[in-house]
């Protein structure tokens, strides 16, 4: 028997209680199609331990993404609330926040509360329409706080514009967590008839917390951007370790596929500097290996860089902090400039594409305004102009494409990857919806690498739920474990999120659903490799 849940209102964000506003239960969740429909129901995430509850803020939904310590005194609470308000003023100031002021104000002012965006949000729908995950929930709260505490319109006008939110510490703490329940996929913004971007509002909230209050997930800040600026990569790989990995790649290529390739590193004046997400070297080395095989086979003039900042495409600042974002983007471009290459090409990493190619365009001045482009048009040129000898029969298994949000909706790179797949995968099938209407993998905006307390469970069972449903529906007619299937995810973070949902639901073991990048499929179709490139070994 299910009990009717209390309806959450906007003003509940200010509730002075440690109890979570909601706890998502197994009954709330969006149901799965076969074969997962028959599996027993389980709660989407475990409750935090009593010790954790005592130490960290979790009064939003019982989940902690930030490991935000509870203030020790009333005074500390008040100071933090003041700090938040100060940050909010800066967010709304043209001088302090010139980098995003215009789209932020547009998003705050233009919403007509038609809720068209709600059903576009995979987190809201997957969670069984939890009010707090509605794209407009945090935005409307912020709007009302601004009307009441920043614009100070007087009692009557404040009441008329919805001045029912009390700005206290629980409100601030819940907003901090809420900013990390949206993966910034911006599907809601795409859906909005007036262009109000609730994704951007979420990002700007994250920025306020980071740039003013020093609050950000450790995975994004301490072991993310700070580590990248210190050692060169968010994975902690040093330049020496990277060079060792390149040697390992060369040996692997020779041992497995019978080709001895000298992978160019720090080759001055090359046409192309390719930069990969360094997570590829740690978890999916076959991806940079495939790039190397393809580029060499096509006879390109290319290089990798072993310079600090030159072997890491990620820029987690994209998701939460303009300053860290700008610092990393400048460092990355500086490497290419010094190497005197003709252009930088981003490998299979979605946010690195959007970050360095698009967003950074307006902070790169003069000689730093360096040519940067995606690997996709380059790869498409190689394949469609027959620069590679390919046999699509080598990829004769059902394959589908997960569209990373950063490529499609956020950048307008929609067709090259499809033209490639249609040429090399005879059984290619689209997920529905796809292209600019795609669903996020659930790992966007840093979620894929955030594993604080019970956040990983939340991600796998709520944030990534829609993607898993899509995958199952796409392969519904070929679930037989005797038939291998491939989910092509040409982005490192998406790949990580998809790996986790396939693994936690045993979909490789039980139904042979595998995942990987795009270049692996291209390499797998190459006729002059002795063995198939894809090894179908789970990792």
């Amino acid at each position, binding site marked *: 028997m299910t009990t009717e849940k209390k309806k959450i*209102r906007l003003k509940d964000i200010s509730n002075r209680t440690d109890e979570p506003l909601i706890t998502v239960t197994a009954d709330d969740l969006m149901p799965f199609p076969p074969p997962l429909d028959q599996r027993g129901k389980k709660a989407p995430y475990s409750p935090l331990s009593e010790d954790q509850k005592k130490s960290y803020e979790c009064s939003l939904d019982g989940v902690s993404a930030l490991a*935000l*310590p509870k203030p020790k005194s009333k005074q500390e609470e008040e100071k933090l609330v003041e*700090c938040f308000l100060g940050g909010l003023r*800066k967010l709304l100031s043209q001088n302090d926040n*010139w*980098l995003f002021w*215009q*789209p932020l104000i*547009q998003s705050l002012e*233009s919403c007509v*509360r*038609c*809720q*068209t965006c709600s059903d576009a949000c995979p987190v809201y729908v997957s969670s069984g329409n939890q009010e707090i995950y509605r794209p*407009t929930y945090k935005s409307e709260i912020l709007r009302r706080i601004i009307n009441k505490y920043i614009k100070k319109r007087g009692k009557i*006008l404040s*009441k*008329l514009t*919805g001045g029912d939110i009390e700005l206290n510490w629980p409100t601030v703490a819940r907003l901090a967590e809420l900013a990390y329940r949206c993966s910034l996929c*911006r599907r809601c*913004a*795409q859906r*909005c*008839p*007036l*262009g109000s*971007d609730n994704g*951007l509002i979420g990002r700007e909230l994250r920025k306020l917390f*980071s*740039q003013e209050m*020093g609050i*950000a*997930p450790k995975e994004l*800040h*301490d072991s993310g951007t*700070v580590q990248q*600026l*210190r050692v060169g990569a968010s994975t902690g790989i040093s330049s020496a370790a990277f060079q060792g990995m390149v040697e390992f790649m060369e040996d692997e290529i020779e041992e497995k596929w019978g080709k001895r390739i000298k992978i160019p590193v720090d080759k001055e004046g090359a046409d192309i500097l390719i930069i990969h997400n360094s997570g590829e070297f740690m978890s999916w080395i076959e991806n940079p290996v495939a790039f190397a095989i393809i580029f060499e086979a096509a006879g390109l003039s290319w290089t990798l860089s072993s310079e600090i900042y030159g072997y890491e495409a990620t820029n987690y600042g994209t998701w939460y902090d303009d*300053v*860290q974002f*700008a610092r990393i983007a400048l460092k990355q471009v500086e490497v290419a400039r010094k190497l005197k290459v003709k252009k930088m090409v981003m490998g299979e990493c979605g946010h690195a594409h959007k970050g360095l190619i*698009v*967003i950074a365009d*307006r*902070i*790169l001045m003069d000689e730093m*305004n360096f*040519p940067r*482009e995606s690997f*996709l*048009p380059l790869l498409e*040129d190689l394949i469609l102009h027959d620069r590679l000898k390919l046999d699509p029969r080598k990829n004769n298994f059902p394959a589908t494409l997960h569209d990373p949000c950063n490529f*499609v909706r*956020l*950048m*307008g*790179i929609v*067709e090259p990857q499809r033209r490639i797949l249609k040429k090399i995968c005879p059984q290619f099938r689209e997920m529905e919806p796809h292209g*600019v209407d795609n669903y996020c993998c659930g790992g966007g905006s840093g979620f894929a690498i955030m594993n604080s307390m019970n956040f990983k469970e939340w991600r796998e069972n709520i944030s990534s739920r829609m993607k898993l449903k899509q995958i199952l529906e796409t392969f519904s007619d070929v679930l037989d474990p005797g038939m291998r299937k491939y989910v092509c995810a040409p982005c490192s973070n998406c790949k990580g999120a998809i790996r986790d949902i396939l693994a936690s639901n045993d979909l490789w073991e039980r139904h042979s659903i595998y995942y990987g990048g795009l270049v692996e499929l291209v390499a797998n179709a190459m006729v002059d490799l002795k063995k198939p490139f894809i090894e179908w070994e789970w990792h």
Partner: protein
Amino acid sequence: MGAMILFIFYGSILFFILATALRVRKCIRAPIHLHWELYKGSSIYELTEWWAKTHGTFVEKLWSMVLDLLFLREFYHRNRRFWYPLYVFHTGLYLLILWHAWLFIRAGVGGIETVSIFGWVWGTFSTLLTFLGGLSIVIMRMTDEELKAYYPPIHYLKWIFLLLTLVGGIIAVDIHFHSSMPALLKYVREQVTFQNFEHKLHPALAPALHVLFASVWLVYLPFSHVFQLFFRYYHYLRWDDVPNARGGEIGRRIKDYLERPATWSAPHIQSGKRWREVASELQQTPATGPK
């Protein structure tokens, strides 16, 4: 009273022009922001060396916007249930605006006694359409729990006032002027040609109230969503993927902002230094944990 109505009416027109100009100026002078567009389909980034490629023409973009505004295409595709009343309302409103424009022109040129009954049909039909659409939207807003919870009270006041304006228009035209287009045009002619000042200072209640309501709308219009739609949504969200070419206008404007101080206070930001310095100089300070 009459003098006040006069002052409000002409004042509202002046306010509308001034406020619109200020809004446009504010939008144009807003700081240039980082690229943050959304794409409905393929973009120049699908091409190698995209920075050298041409973008869609202004006419293409403008045409797309006109179609969106006329047919509310985004609502049609994304939220059909909401589109029905919204479309009725907007169609009525567009027709009503056109009708008023016609009314002012027709009052100024040609004989008003020979005016066709079509003018009355047009005005009445537009008013009813706008009223029907508006009323449906209010009912939907008040009865749908999902919509109601997020709609601040001030917006209901706006709708009520709009409906009253429409009712006021019907009363003025059909009761005060007895649905007579020549009588209405004569009144409008007096307004636009500054004739019969005595008549203006002692207006009849029904047209005076309608003029008063309309004046309030003129004051509101520069702050409405329609204005934001063009200057922000289209110009800055959908059409902003113009690359920052070396030595170009975008770079010049950004450089100015890079010289301004970064004011954020978290430990990893060197508050007070210029943006250019903050972005290019490193400080090894982790920042997590409230400061």
